[in-house]
């Protein structure tokens, strides 16, 4: 079946602009995660959804970052007033259940470049 998909695959924007990154999880997966991977680093947790609600948003770096999952499926990560330091690959993952032992399946990522 289809895996996790993310659009766009690449996004180039200018400092100060607003961007939206989209994630389509595996059908039926209730949990959805956003991570950010900077160059030379491992993925860093941003936010986790269980259904429609954000169960843990402790990784969002500041109030410029916001994510939604209004119908419990597709999620959008929104970044306001982008800064050059926001440049990274943004990864989305989904899992079938609510347990920490459930495998997280990752999408290919969106590479964001802020000029």
């Amino acid at each position, binding site marked *: 079946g289809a895996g996790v998909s993310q659009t766009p695959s690449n996004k180039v924007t200018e400092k100060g602009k607003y961007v939206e990154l989209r994630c389509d999880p595996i059908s039926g997966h209730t949990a959805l*995660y956003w991570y950010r991977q900077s160059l030379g680093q*491992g993925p860093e947790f941003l936010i986790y959804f269980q259904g429609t609600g954000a169960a843990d948003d402790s990784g969002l770096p500041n109030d410029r970052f916001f994510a939604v999952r209004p119908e419990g499926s597709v999620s959008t990560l929104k970044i306001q007033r982008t800064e050059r330091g926001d440049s990274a690959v943004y990864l989305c993952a989904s899992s079938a259940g609510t347990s920490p032992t459930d495998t*997280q399946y*990752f999408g290919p990522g969106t590479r964001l470049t802020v000029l």
Partner: protein
Amino acid sequence: AQSVTQLDSQVPVFEEAPVELRCNYSSSVSVYLFWYVQYPNQGLQLLLKYLSGSTLVESINGFEAEFNKSQTSFHLRKPSVHISDTAEYFCAVTLQGGSEKLVFGKGTKLTVNP
């Protein structure tokens, strides 16, 4: 807070040689442990995981990892590597009974040369 250390950022080896990728973690509570692999131009894939029971876990492509609680380690090994094993490998932990978020190390780039 928990953390993961992968001491080697790059590991070059020759084909058919053995390899060990090191991973140490720090946590005040019990954790679950994972190895993810990222092949060139592909997304992260789960390679293997330790949840409970036998401390030695194996993947379908010949990798194994052993959980060592006293040394807080979860090193990844393969007795004979192939060119196709060239990839970046990430060690990760998540808290037992805690948030489902994964905490990753910085990754180890394994390059297998002919």
